[in-house]
């Protein structure tokens, strides 16, 4: 990238019109695009019709937002909900964890009333989940009611890693014991995690 423009917060970048749109690290004020970060200006022309003006910075601060796919670790579990710690958002690792909870009715789409939390998760499991829209609650609410969401990494009772054998069962690699989980259907090349 030659002759790059270094910008600072509040710097006017260009007009907001039918050919330019807002990207990361920018905001709009009175028909102009302004920068909200310090970094370099990048104009993304991959789409021929409209180019995205964004600011690339050394470290982007990310916080979980509704609709994001997150990686979380299950910490505590009871019959109604389980508590999780969000460790990364959309494939970006967070500096520190955020608390969240996953209620029983959000575990899967079908047969909600038959869910037994103990047959879906165990403390220590690494899960993929989606953040539900904000409510008045203080913590983030998660859902795994999609085929691609659920337990990704888990250890058996004896402490050995397990591999999925169906969407409800996982098998221990050492002892061959079968345990119940809400297993995520992993899409190859992790395309889901990076969206």
């Amino acid at each position, binding site marked *: 990238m030659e002759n*790059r423009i270094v910008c*600072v*917060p509040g710097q006017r970048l260009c007009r907001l019109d039918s050919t330019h749109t807002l990207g990361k690290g920018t905001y709009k004020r009175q028909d102009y695009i302004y920068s*909200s970060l*310090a970094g*370099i200006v990048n104009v993304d022309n991959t789409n021929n019709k409209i180019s995205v003006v964004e600011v690339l910075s*050394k470290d982007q*601060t990310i*916080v979980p937002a509704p609709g994001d796919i997150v990686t979380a670790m299950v910490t505590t579990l009871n019959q109604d909900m389980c508590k999780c710690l969000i460790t990364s958002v959309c494939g970006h690792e967070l500096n520190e964890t955020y608390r969240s909870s996953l209620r029983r009715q959000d575990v899967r789409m079908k047969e909600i009333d038959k869910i037994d939390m103990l047959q879906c998760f165990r403390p220590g499991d690494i899960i993929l989940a989606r953040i539900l829209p904000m409510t008045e609650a203080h913590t983030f609410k998660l859902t795994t009611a999609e085929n691609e969401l659920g337990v990704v990494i888990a250890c058996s009772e004896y402490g050995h890693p397990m591999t999925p054998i169906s969407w409800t069962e996982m098998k221990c690699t050492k002892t061959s014991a079968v345990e119940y989980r809400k297993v995520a259907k992993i899409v190859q090349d992790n395309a889901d995690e990076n969206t």
Partner: protein
Amino acid sequence: MDLLSRQGLRTDGRRSGELRRIRCKMGVFNQPDGSAYLEQGNTKVVAAIYGPHEIRTNRAKAPNDSAVINCQYSMATFSRSERKRRPRDNKSAELTLHLKQAMATAIKTDLYPKSQIDIFVQVLQSDGGNYSVCVNAATLALIDAGIAMEEFVISCTSSLANGETPLVDISHLEETMGGPSLTVAILPISGKIAMLETSQRIHINHLEPVLTEAVRGCRYIYENLNKIIKKHYEEIGGALNWGTEEYNI
């Protein structure tokens, strides 16, 4: 003793509209998410930013759709000619609120829902305009932390010498001996005023020239900091490949 000599020089040799030397460094600490050191004349300040992270204080009161800004202003016990007993007192609590108010006008809090941003500033050496230097240092540290802001928040002080001439960027001596001192924090691009305070009553006829002089001082500081930040980012940005590697994961 006159604050302005007949030749038009102040006690430290500056002219009435002249500011003190500005030196700064961004990213001085490793542990916080952002930090900065700023020196305006003999006033020296460090600022550190933590966050955005999960809300830890007052979780019940926290707004649902925007970030909580938590500030702390303190003075080192060795910052003044007489040792301070406590780094934080009633005066600091007041300045903490002013600082929070000024910074909240520029930070785009709606981008960080259910999160908290901590701003800690400490005065290492005090020589007038402590609050202003703290605001400027906090702005630099926020930029270093990569927190989205609408624009800079820049603050400057000004006072009145001999009841007629406005003095910009006043020192401790001018603050204590002179007339009323005025502190203003502005958003330099849109020209909005984020904070305005006077230490005592000021005549309405004097308010405009003193305020104009303080705003001019703010713009001068803005130009300077702008240059320093751009230079800093040109130096460090190239080494980090402008964060473009993150995009290719």
